[in-house]
């Protein structure tokens, strides 16, 4: 076993021996990300940054909570229009006063639609020269700012005094393409979208939930569709079905992971219409290929050293040569007998894909003893990643318990 310089730098360690102080990992829980088999690598791994075996640990007593997947809440939609359509007038239906409208010309469209160019029709009245609008921002106001909107972007709010309802916007343009983004910050009509898990492996099932709400109550929509997009440009249609509680569900077998050089995410886009009300929502998920997995073995090393040191070797099954990263949080038992978080340790090393590969988490006295904890210890929030693309291949809420 090659020791890193960091490890050698810990002078308190006197000797190292291995005993089978703990037989193995805990069984996977229902929220864990695990694979039953090691997948074949789809292609050549991108190069890794580092070649040396590294270990690092730091104290952390921060309270920890179960992971909750992100929920997207949308009160907005986007639509594309041609210059000719804008010249004839486009319809915008709002459900609350003061909708925010942003108009961006597509690449190659030379004319920005300045708010002063717009004619707004509403409730039988015509408003020109930016009357009927507030918080007006010209293309010049938004140029070079933060965020970096596309060139020629303009934005404004429909005057709250006009109330909600049907608006018709027209502008004297004859060509080009424009993206119109309508956001209703004060609307009670919203689309919620979430995935059951934020991280999946190829071959698993991605479960999606969508819910259209009116004033907090679930409501039906006239149409709902969606698409899953991959970092490499692939897209997969989603089919939603309505559940008894009125919400919508879609599931899709997770496709082959995309080849990336980092944790680039996939996106789920969902589009609904309910009468004249449109809402678009999106969220993100990670999809990886389990080209390595934890084998289930976990052995604590017995150390002849001062203080309390918890060093655990986790067996790894890998199908290819790779540089794998393992991160975990140590919990220990405090004076009141309660398990509390103590420290985080991370290790990474290159593997040849042999049967007896392992990764070793080192919680040494410098990070353990200040916490004033003793056995039993647990390792939680254990994550296995491939540093070539940082794909998350395994995640365990509870991974190991000391004797």
């Amino acid at each position, binding site marked *: 076993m090659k020791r890193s310089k960091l490890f050698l730098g810990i002078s308190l360690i006197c000797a190292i021996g291995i005993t089978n102080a703990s037989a193995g990992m805990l069984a996977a829980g229902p929220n864990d990300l695990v694979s039953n088999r090691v997948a074949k690598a789809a292609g050549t791994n991108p190069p890794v940054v580092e070649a040396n075996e590294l270990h690092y640990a730091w104290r952390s007593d921060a*309270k920890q*909570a179960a992971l909750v997947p992100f929920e997207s809440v949308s009160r907005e939609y986007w639509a594309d229009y041609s210059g000719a359509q804008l010249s004839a007038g486009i319809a915008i239906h709002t459900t609350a006063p003061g909708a925010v409208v942003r108009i961006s010309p597509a690449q190659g469209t030379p004319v920005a639609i300045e708010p002063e160019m717009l004619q707004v029709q509403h409730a039988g009245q015509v408003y020109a020269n930016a009357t009927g609008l507030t918080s007006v921002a010209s293309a*010049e106001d938004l140029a070079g700012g933060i965020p*970096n909107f596309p060139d020629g972007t303009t934005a404004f709010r429909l005057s709250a005094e006009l109330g909600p309802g049907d608006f018709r916007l027209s502008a004297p343009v004859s060509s080009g393409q424009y993206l119109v983004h309508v956001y209703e910050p004060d609307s009670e009509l919203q689309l919620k979208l979430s995935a059951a898990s*934020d991280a999946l492996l190829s071959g698993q099932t991605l479960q999606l939930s969508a819910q259209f709400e009116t004033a907090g109550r679930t409501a039906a929509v006239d149409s709902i569709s969606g698409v899953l997009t991959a970092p490499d*440009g692939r897209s997969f249609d989603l089919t939603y079905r309505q559940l008894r509680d009125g919400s919508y569900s879609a599931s899709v077998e997770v496709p082959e992971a995309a080849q990336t050089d980092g*944790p680039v995410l996939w996106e789920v886009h969902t589009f609904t219409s309910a009468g004249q009300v449109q809402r678009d929502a999106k969220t993100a998920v990670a999809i990886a290929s389990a080209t390595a997995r934890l084998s289930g073995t976990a052995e604590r090393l017995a150390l002849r050293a001062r203080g309390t040191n918890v060093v655990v070797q986790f067996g790894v099954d890998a199908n290819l040569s790779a540089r794998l990263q393992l991160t975990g949080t140590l919990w220990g038992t405090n004076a009141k007998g309660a398990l509390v978080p103590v420290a985080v340790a991370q290790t990474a090393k290159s593997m040849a894909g042999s049967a007896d590969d392992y990764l070793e988490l080192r919680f040494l006295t410098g990070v353990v003893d200040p916490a004033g904890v003793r056995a039993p210890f647990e390792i939680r929030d254990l994550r296995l990643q491939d540093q070539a693309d940082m794909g998350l291949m395994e995640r365990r809420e509870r991974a190991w318990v000391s004797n």
Partner: protein
Amino acid sequence: MIRTLTALLCVLVLGAGGLSASAATGVAFVHGTGKQTDALNDYWKSDFVNSVRQGLPNQSNYTVVNCDFEQYMWKADAAGCLAGQLTSFISARGITDLVVITHSNGGNVVRWIMSNPTYDSRYPNIVSKIRWVNALAPSSKGTPLAAAVMAGNVFEQSLGWLLGYKSDAVRMQQESWMAYYNANYLYGTSGRPALAKGFWSVVGTDVETAIWDGDSYCGGYGLNLGLEITQAWLDSCSDGFLNCSSQTGAGNVWFYDTSQMAGGEPLSHNQSRRACFGLDVILRNDI
């Protein structure tokens, strides 16, 4: 208060170890989204940097980082570039006590380094030298504006993705993306393990643009005007680009702008990287 106590403890620990007299303190300025080649003049402005570094025992111990933060945070041109420049600075100046000042997305790139120390052998040495990070308006939980910029016709977006047309840094700062990264790659958010070193955020809470008010001109009236409209996409507490909930999303809050700035002025996202309302003096006195 917590921050003050931490500072005191730090001094006590250093003092007890006999290191305070020999500590070489340095400060590094880490910009936000964008590809910088002259961040001193284009991103921060020299009056800001020169004012802050007056707090250093040796005023030459500073560096202004120039990297490509249009890239994803883990990229060689982003975190790799930052690691290279910090390592060179630490080595060349013998820095043993590093205060890192970040703005906006720069906080995410530094959190990548602090959260993934085994990704690159330069990272552990950098983390060990950091005293703490002063994160000015960090985009720790992303911003709805990133999605507003990115979204649109999803098929065009897929095409843009293939062509590399959009900024990866903006894509990364969508709220859904940052939620995933915070849950799996970046430490310091609520319910997750802490970072190895302190991450103290300065929170901008509002944008003021009144043509008759001189305060609205600090940092550039035009830029502040643009942030006024973008507030429409954000919560009532925002700096024009980030909700306060994003700025407070990782580490600890050092202070909210109106509690410390001269005249109780808020800091827009543009002003939190400039010598506005005494921000530079507060940062100077922190070193």
